[in-house]
């Protein structure tokens, strides 16, 4: 824990807070979007907002793999799970409601064989242990979780595992940021700068953000997930905003380079290719924003192996997840927030995932709202 505790030190936080207070210009607001749910979580869990000046605001972005998965894909997972096979996926996805308020957890209770795994290796292990049954790994996540999926497919191919396949829902961060910045509704989206997810950049590096920062004239700082990282990155953004700069800077130098992890990128490129179009919850269909399995690995593509429903599904009426994911609304602006939509009874994905903006507001920050 030593290397973690160092990034949570109160004395350093106070020092940084004083630095930020000195840097901000009175009379102007700073709207900083943290793209990733990991940052949202850290901001709330450690109370980072309490240490920031009142004119620095965090706008919660769409960077939570569960939150951006459209209901149609959740329905697809549930339909698969009901086909007498073993469906493996990461924990957070189990509670996400699909159409008709059902979920993988409910499908499991009804008899579907749904298993929570910690890694793609667990899913491979289940496939090896159950040769008579089809095992499907429902893969979700940004660039961080894609290399392990690629490894799993390569291993499955090498071993000739004929009962293993994967549903690819891997999505791409720069494309999503482009989607947010490119099509804001006039006057509604006011973002002065972005905190970029460091774990994604350990894979892709900082370079892919350079065209975005230049095209949209928004500074981007790649930030670690510890609270001191978030504060330091915020200070770097504030300085750029004050100086009218819009560059990509790297706060997470301890693990991120400009070019990223070439080995991981090569691995991903070998197994996956760009999907021409993919639907994102809240952002709609975005071109070249997700990956699909290459033809060379088609036999391990569950979307080809099984007959699956591909119809779009409607959002819950009144649910503002789409606007919240885009940073246009805050969770507390949603009429359903805290009334019918709570973590115990989630209506939308932002309330389901522990890294979703609504769940973070509800779980960690509710007392502020009651006090307001």
């Amino acid at each position, binding site marked *: 824990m030593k290397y973690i505790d160092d990034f949570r030190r109160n004395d350093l936080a106070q020092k940084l807070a004083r630095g930020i207070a000195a840097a901000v210009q009175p009379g102007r607001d700073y709207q900083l979007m943290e793209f990733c749910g990991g940052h949202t979580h850290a901001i709330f869990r450690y109370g980072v907002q309490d240490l920031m000046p009142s004119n620095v605001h965090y706008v919660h972005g769409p960077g939570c793999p569960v939150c951006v998965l459209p209901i149609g894909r959740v329905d697809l997972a549930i339909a698969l799970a009901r086909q007498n096979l073993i469906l493996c996926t990461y924990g957070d996805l189990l509670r996400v409601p699909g159409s008709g308020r059902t979920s993988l957890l409910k499908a499991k209770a009804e008899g579907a064989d749904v298993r929570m795994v910690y890694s793609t290796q667990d899913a491979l292990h289940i496939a090896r242990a159950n040769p008579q049954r089809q095992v499907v790994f429902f893969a979700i996540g940004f660039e961080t979780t894609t290399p392990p999926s690629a490894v799993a497919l390569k291993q499955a191919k090498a071993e000739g595992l004929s009962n293993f396949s994967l549903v690819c829902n891997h999505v791409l961060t720069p494309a999503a940021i482009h989607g947010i910045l490119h099509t804001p509704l006039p006057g509604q989206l006011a973002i002065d700068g972005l905190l970029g997810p460091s*774990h994604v950049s350990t894979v892709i590096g900082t370079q892919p953000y350079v065209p975005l920062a230049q095209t949209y004239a928004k500074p981007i700082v790649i930030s670690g997930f510890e609270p001191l990282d978030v504060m330091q990155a915020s200070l770097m953004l504030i300085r750029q905003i004050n100086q009218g700069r819009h560059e990509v800077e790297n706060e997470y130098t301890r693990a991120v380079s400009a070019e990223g992890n070439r080995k991981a990128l090569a691995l991903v490129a070998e197994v996956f290719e760009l999907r021409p179009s993919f639907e994102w919850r809240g952002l709609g269909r975005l071109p070249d924003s997700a990956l699909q399995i290459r033809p060379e690995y088609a036999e391990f593509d569950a979307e080809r192996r099984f007959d699956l429903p591909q119809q779009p599904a409607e959002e819950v009426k009144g649910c503002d997840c789409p606007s919240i994911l885009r940073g246009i609304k805050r969770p507390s602006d949603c009429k359903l927030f805290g009334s019918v939509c709570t973590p115990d009874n989630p209506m939308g994905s932002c309330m389901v995932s*522990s890294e979703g903006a609504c769940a973070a507001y509800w779980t960690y920050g*509710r007392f502020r709202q009651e006090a307001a």
Partner: protein
Amino acid sequence: MSPQPKRFAQRLNLREGTVDMTHGSGGRAMAQLIEELFMQHLDNPLLRQANDQAAFDVPAGRLVMSTDGHVISPLFFPGGDIGSLAVHGTLNDVAMAGARPLYLAAGFILEEGFPLADLARIVASMAAACNKAGVAVVTGDTKVVERGKGDGVFITTTGVGRVPAGVNISGDRARPGDAILVSGSLGDHGVAVMASRENLSFDTRIESDSAALHELVAAMVAVAPGIHCLRDPTRGGLATTLNELAQQSGVGMQLEETQIPIKPAVAAACELLGLDPLYIANEGKLICICAAEDAEPLLEAMRSHPLGADAAQIGQVIEDPQGFVRLRTAFGGQRVVDWLTGEQLPRIC
């Protein structure tokens, strides 16, 4: 004189035998299981009477009674197993009224095919836990379910205990200004079980804290009979337990993160898995809410007992009609410590 007829033609095969449906049928096989396994380990005069109930004298004063079903996977984990857990869990529920536990009842639901050797290990562990706690299992029940309809073994235990005169401990008695104490480090049990369940290996072995707390409670009640609330933070951990107490008492709580004892290995495991140790189960810890002036004498009494060596004051009760449990983070911010929703799930990335 003719020799005593043998009751059972062959002894139970405790090395390689398994539970079968006849062990729950009420016939000879069940009688043999009880005699050669349960009675062997849990023997005491009341149980040996072999009635369908235990008859005993009732001590003067208030009695408390508690029951708890124990289902856990895996059945054996570092620092304990379902047998000792079934004893400690119910003894602690009784003890959290400030009571001294007197008797236990145990109900077993066994799955067809379960190895008798494992069952013997579990019952021996129950017996050891009972002996250490000075409490006897005085009545019990055994049922067998078909293979696939159970998870090896389920154990329900019911406990009876006596509350000393002048002690009135209840979850609705927390008042603003009260101190919130914990008896030691949090999350050990949940992380130990999770680590063995998921075959995760950590450099440091994390053991369950499963233990009977009534002796610690007795030492606490002796110095401060006016304790307001006691509760063992089992499922849902510290966070859920404090939310329960806040709601029952109609108060809020203010915690100090830096004061909450968590072992570095537990904190590191939680960090790795994306879990919050405040929500992780404990089986050998208690939370005490008491008048501010009782806090120091209580901490002293707790720290002089092995099960309370790391006791600490972690916060205080505050006035709050919303009933929020708040935490001042080590980082310097403030947040809500909310009820647990469903199960804690590991994060994706």
